[in-house]
């Protein structure tokens, strides 16, 4: 039954497509040295595609410098596509130095022919391009130049944000406290659930991996050192930064990008509101305030995750864990993690805002720059972390 009805719909559709439309018929004949192109029927968008292929072959067969008569007297209806088709081949024939005459056009058709004739001049460039073929070497060159330009622009951006910061310090009344607090709520407070979940899971993962290894040596208690140091010094700052880069960095780019497209930023500039003071610094400061707090939060949750698994896997009670933690975890590890947070936050906010200002006036670029912003932010965070490791190790901290 079902297949029957599907068939019905199918045939109904096919019949519908076949119905009504009279296919244009084009014939090309050679009479006494004159080529006669005869058109019949309806010439509109729906009917001319067959005629187009007939004409393409037919006109190729016509010799140079021959006489062509194009008879349109039997055509019933025309639209602009039909006319352009005819004029297109008339121009091609004329290029072959043929003598082309259009005969039998009604007055209405004559008017349309005139309207489009003056307009269809042949230019050698094809307007609609095909798929783009990339020129490898050229692409590398372009990429390099744009990469270098990005770096220069980024440094200029950082410079300008420092100037605005100085302005903030000199004129404390110009600090946008409301915007800062709103951004702390948006980027900090609302990110706590996801930060909690990821850092808990990281604590669990580290504890599991550590537990298996340490059990072999009977060094169960050292799980506390492992978790305490790795979470506070490295993992909590890094994981928090990556979550924030994905969450807030991207939204900064998108927000500022949309503002640029809707000319909000131009409007601000015209009122002599410095976008750095109104948009960039509040976001930067908000993130630099909330990031260390979030890292502290992630430290607690991460260590708790480790404690939880130690209890299950190694039978290390919470009290023992806490006792050992006080001896094992020097406070410097904690502070290093927190201080990293300031730098990570600064990098994420700077890249997010910078990429937002790079958005050009089309919708596609928002998506592109948002992606770039997140990738850049995560890369910079990890690079910065590596730099910290090297420097701190060399200093023996």
């Amino acid at each position: 039954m079902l297949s029957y009805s599907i068939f019905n719909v199918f045939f109904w559709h096919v019949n519908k497509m076949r119905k009504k439309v009279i296919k244009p018929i084009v014939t090309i004949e050679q009479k006494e040295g004159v080529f006669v192109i005869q058109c019949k029927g309806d010439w509109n968008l729906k009917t001319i595609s067959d005629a187009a292929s007939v004409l393409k072959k037919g006109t190729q067969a016509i010799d140079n410098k021959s006489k062509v008569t194009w008879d349109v007297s039997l055509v019933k209806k025309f639209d602009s596509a039909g006319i352009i088709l005819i004029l297109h081949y008339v121009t091609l024939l004329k290029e072959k130095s043929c003598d082309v005459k259009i005969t039998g056009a009604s007055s209405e058709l004559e008017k349309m022919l005139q309207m489009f004739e003056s307009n269809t001049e042949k230019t050698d460039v094809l307007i609609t391009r095909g798929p783009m073929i990339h020129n490898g070497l050229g692409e590398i060159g372009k990429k390099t130049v744009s990469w270098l330009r990005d770096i220069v622009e980024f440094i200029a951006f950082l410079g300008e944000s420092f100037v605005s910061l100085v302005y903030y310090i000199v004129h404390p009344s110009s600090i946008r406290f409301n915007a800062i607090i709103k951004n702390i709520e948006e980027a900090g407070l609302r990110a706590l659930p996801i930060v909690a979940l990821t850092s808990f899971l990281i604590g669990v993962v580290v504890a599991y991996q550590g537990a298996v290894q340490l059990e072999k040596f009977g060094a169960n208690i050292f799980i506390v050192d492992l978790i305490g140091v790795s979470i506070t010094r490295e993992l909590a700052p890094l994981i928090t930064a990556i979550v924030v880069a994905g969450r807030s960095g991207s939204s900064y780019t998108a927000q500022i990008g949309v503002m640029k497209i809707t000319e909000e930023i131009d409007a601000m500039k015209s009122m002599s509101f410095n976008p750095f003071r109104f948009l960039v610094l509040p976001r930067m400061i908000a993130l630099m305030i909330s990031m260390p707090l979030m890292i502290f939060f992630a430290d607690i949750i991460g260590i708790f995750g480790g404690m939880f698994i130690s209890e299950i896997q190694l039978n290390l009670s919470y009290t023992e864990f806490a006792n050992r933690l006080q001896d094992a975890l020097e406070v410097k590890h904690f502070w290093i993690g927190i201080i990293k947070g300031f730098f990570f936050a600064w990098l994420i906010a700077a890249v997010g805002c910078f990429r937002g200002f790079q958005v050009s006036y089309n919708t596609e670029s928002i998506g592109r720059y948002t992606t770039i912003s997140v990738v850049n932010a995560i890369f910079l965070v990890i690079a910065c972390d590596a730099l910290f490791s090297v420097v701190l190790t060399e200093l023996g901290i």
Partner: protein
Amino acid sequence: MKNIVVDMKNIVTRFGENLVHDHVNLSIYEGEIYGLLGGSGSGKSTLLKEMIMLLQPQSGSINVLGKDILKINTIEAEELKKNWGVLFQSGALFSSLTVAENIGITLKEYTDFPRELIDAIVRSKINIVGLPEYAARLYPSELSGGMVKRVSLARALAMDPKILFLDEPTSGLDPVGAEEFDKLILGLRDVLGFTVVMVTHDLDSIWSIVDRLCVLGDHKVIAEGSLNEVMKSSHPVVVRFFKGTRGLVRSRAYDGE
């Protein structure tokens, strides 16, 4: 009697609590330039969007090119939509495509024409709306406001529509540009013979190119017909519209001609 191409009967539209149309009736005849008038918020654009199936009224019937578009099935709707072109207020060009690709996109999707023919059609549409040749390779973000309108018109004309819907075609154009645009639409209508439905509050357009119009106000159509017929109405909205300072200046100039 000319054929009716768009027929709206007893249209009721409501956005939440807000009543926009209260039993609106209007009919648009084949080949005419029909103006939808009314103050801001009177639901002109909403009415236009209902005609092109972007919005649905709460009740009433809409007949476009002999099809009841509120009861039409998907296949028929798809076919019907190829019969009209729409010029949106802000142009609504696809920003990732060049001007030429914007104009040619419907041809590329819905016909099996060879590339050269699509190219020829695109080129001729670009010329016919008065754009320079080099504009073809530009992206929408590189165009001026007037050019965006022209490209959008060329895109709307690409499939040789039977009806052309224009949402405030002259808004954002300078008076010279607006007049040229009006003449362009009039000229194209005369040669290609399509029907034009335009939302406008440009008094100059109303005087110079609109054949028939309707004025929306108080959620209803308060006057419909030719300009002279509409001017006879004593409804306060019509009076304010045509007898305001701007309207008076225009009608004096019109009488003088």
